[in-house]
Every structure is written in structure tokens, then in C-alpha cells.
């Protein structure tokens, strides 16, 4: 009875190690993936906040400074890990000239290609629309 009992405990120990290894391996991979997602979400949140900041600056800028084309904007000093680009294109023009332009603010990791950016905000600006004080 004693012998038999000791043998079973050893087998159980081996089983524990084997099953535990499988479970731990899966859990570690899962944890890595979760961490990766969490980091991406955090980076995306930072990127969108930077995009909103730059979009607000574009909204406040004089229309004449919003020339068409792509321009790399200066890094925000506190966030050197991100590159910010402003893309401007004409949506419609008319006599006058009366011009409607599309403004994209795109944020990617520093050194990124902007092919699959972390953040992209899109809006329009018009040269004959201004935001008044309501007075």
C-alpha cells in the first residue's frame, strides 16, 4: 500500500510539471500579446492626442499658411518617439479664388513610413469661413 502510493505521487508530479509547462507556455504567450496590445493602445492614445493638438493649431492658423502638400511638423519636445505630418490638398476651388482644402494630421512612430499610421485626423478648411467670437 505504501509503495503503490509513493509511485502514484511521482507520476502525479511528472503530470503536474508537464501540464503546468503547457499551461504556463500558453499563458506567457497570451500575456505577451496582451502587453503588446496594451502598448499599441497607449501609443495610439498618445498619437491621437498629438494629432488633436496639431489639428487645433491648423484650425487656428491663417488659411494662407495652409499651403497644399505634405509637411513634417516639428516633434513635440515631450514626445520624441512620434513623427507628425500635415497633408493638405484642394477639395474644391472656384472663382475668386474660393478654396476648400482637406487637412490631414498623421502621426506615426519616429522613423515610421506613415503607411499604416498610429493616428490620422481629417478635416476641411475654407478660405472664406472664419470662426468668430459671436459678437
Amino acid at each position, binding site marked *: 500500500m505504501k509503495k503503490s502510493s509513493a509511485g502514484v505521487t511521482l507520476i502525479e508530479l511528472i*503530470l*503536474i510539471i508537464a501540464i503546468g509547462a503547457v499551461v504556463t507556455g500558453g499563458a506567457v504567450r*497570451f500575456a505577451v500579446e*496582451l502587453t503588446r496590445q496594451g502598448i499599441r493602445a497607449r501609443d495610439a*492614445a498618445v498619437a491621437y492626442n498629438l494629432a488633436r493638438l496639431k489639428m487645433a493649431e491648423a484650425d487656428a492658423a491663417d488659411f494662407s499658411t495652409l499651403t497644399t502638400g505634405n509637411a513634417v511638423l516639428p516633434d513635440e519636445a515631450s514626445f520624441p518617439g512620434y513623427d507628425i505630418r500635415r497633408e493638405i490638398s484642394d477639395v474644391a476651388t472656384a472663382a475668386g479664388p474660393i478654396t476648400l482644402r482637406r487637412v490631414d494630421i498623421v502621426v506615426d512612430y519616429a522613423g515610421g513610413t506613415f503607411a499604416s499610421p498610429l493616428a490620422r485626423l481629417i*478635416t476641411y478648411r*475654407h478660405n472664406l469661413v*472664419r470662426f468668430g467670437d459671436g459678437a
Partner: protein
Amino acid sequence: MRVSDERGFGLILLITLIAIASIFISGTTIFVTNAARETQLKTDRAKAASLAQAGLLQALHNWRVSNASEASRTYSELNATVTGAQGYQTGTQADFAYFTFDSPANAFWSGSNTLAGWTIRNIHSASATPLSNLTVKQAIVSWTPQGNASRRLSRIRLNGTPVYNASAPNGALIPLTGSAAARTLAPGASWTGNNTDLRWSGALPSPVRVTVQWIFQDDSSTVRSRSHSVVYWDGAQANAATATAARPSRHTFSIVATGRVSETTKLPRVLSTVKATVSGNAAGGFMEIIDWDGVDQNLFS
């Protein structure tokens, strides 16, 4: 007996550990998933708000280029995709009511109890339906100061046809009466002139500030169907010929634009709506956004 009791102990321990680990992993998963979802909603809201502005400016652009003369400009509702599953839409009846007080007629006071000569024009282009007609359903008329405590609004006429004939206190929601035809403007048509007026039960104080908000037929339970609160007069009463700053010189209308961000091209995930009041005749040929109010909606979370 003691040894015999140890049988299976390791397995039970393993199962217990797995159970505890499962609870821990599940909790972590839920936490990380919720955080990611919240981040996604925040970013979608930012996208939708920018798109709403895009829709608003596109509508203003269409209005501005439709005609060289402000008196003949029109536009229609929009529903556009900017990129992928992102886009904007505009358009309710309230978007197409254009208010003027010095063109083509001058607003004026008649007998200290009647404010006449104001103009509402339907600036919808005739090409689109069903929103091309404007039908008013209700109105809110307010005046400051109140003056005589028993003073009431007693009549509203549109091009000579009474659409209200009763007694309404200051700021009340007034249900308009009469035929729908009398309360409807076809594209390009106006209510204007001496027989378009607000009348009170007696003289109002002078100076006085009168504001009116119109509620339109299309979806009257929401603010989207309401015009902005329009100032009809602000100062000492005067006749039509008198040049006075009390007669509003801004020609105003409101636009509601909604930016949308979808998970697919069909289902909106987040909507951001802005309602802007626009002055169409600002100095230098500018259109000026004089008021701006935004609302976000998360449709899926």
C-alpha cells in the same frame, strides 16, 4: 491511512492552480480589452468631430459658390464618404432657413405692438427631396424686458396668413395652426414684407429685445429640427425707414453636420454632431461661424 489520503493531492493542487491562474488571466484580459475599447472610442470621437467640421465647411462652400449674389445662394443636404468608413452628413429642414432683417425688406415696428418686415427664405436648392420644402410646426417667441405683466403674443402671420391667433406668454412653445401650405416654403421662396409679422396684445417696451426660435416639421422632437435662436430686434423701436442698429444686420442660418466613424462602411460606430450658426454676410465676403455646439454619440461600446 495517512499515506492513502495523499493520493490525488498533486492533481487537486494543479487544478486549483489552473483555476486561480484562469481567474487572474480573465481579469487581466477584461481590463486590457476595456482599456483598448475606451481608447478606440476616444480616437473615433476625435475623428468624428473633425469630420463634422469637414461636413460643415463643405456645405458652406457649396452655398458660397452656388451664386455670386448672396440673395440667390442655395445648397442641399450632403451625405459623403471622406475615406474608408469615415464621412459626414448634413441636412435637416432647420438648416435651410435663412433669416434677414434688412433685405429684401426692413424689419420695423408698427404701433408698438407689431414687429413686421422680417424675412425667412428657403435656401435649399430645388434639386433634392424630400427636404427641399420647409414647414414650420412650432415657434418660441421671447422678449426682454417683459413690460406689462399681462402682455402676450397674440398673432403670427406669414405672408399675410395667420398661423397663430391666440395668447401665448413670453418664451412659451407655440403650436402653429392653419394649413400646412401656409406654413411651408418651397425652395427659393420667402416669408417677407409688411404682412409677415409678430403681434402682441399691447405695446411692448422700447427698447426691447425679441428672439424667435422656429421648430420645423421634419423631426420636431430634437434640436436638429430647430433653427438657432434668432434675434429679431434689439433696441429702441423704429419704423422701416429709420436706419437703426436695433435691426439685426447679420444674415444668419444654422447648419447641423454629423461626422461618422464606422467599423464597416454600413454601421456607424461613433457620431459627432455640430450645430453651427453662420453669418452669411460678414465683412470682406467672409462667412462667419458665430456659434458652435457639439454632441458626441457612441453607438456601440
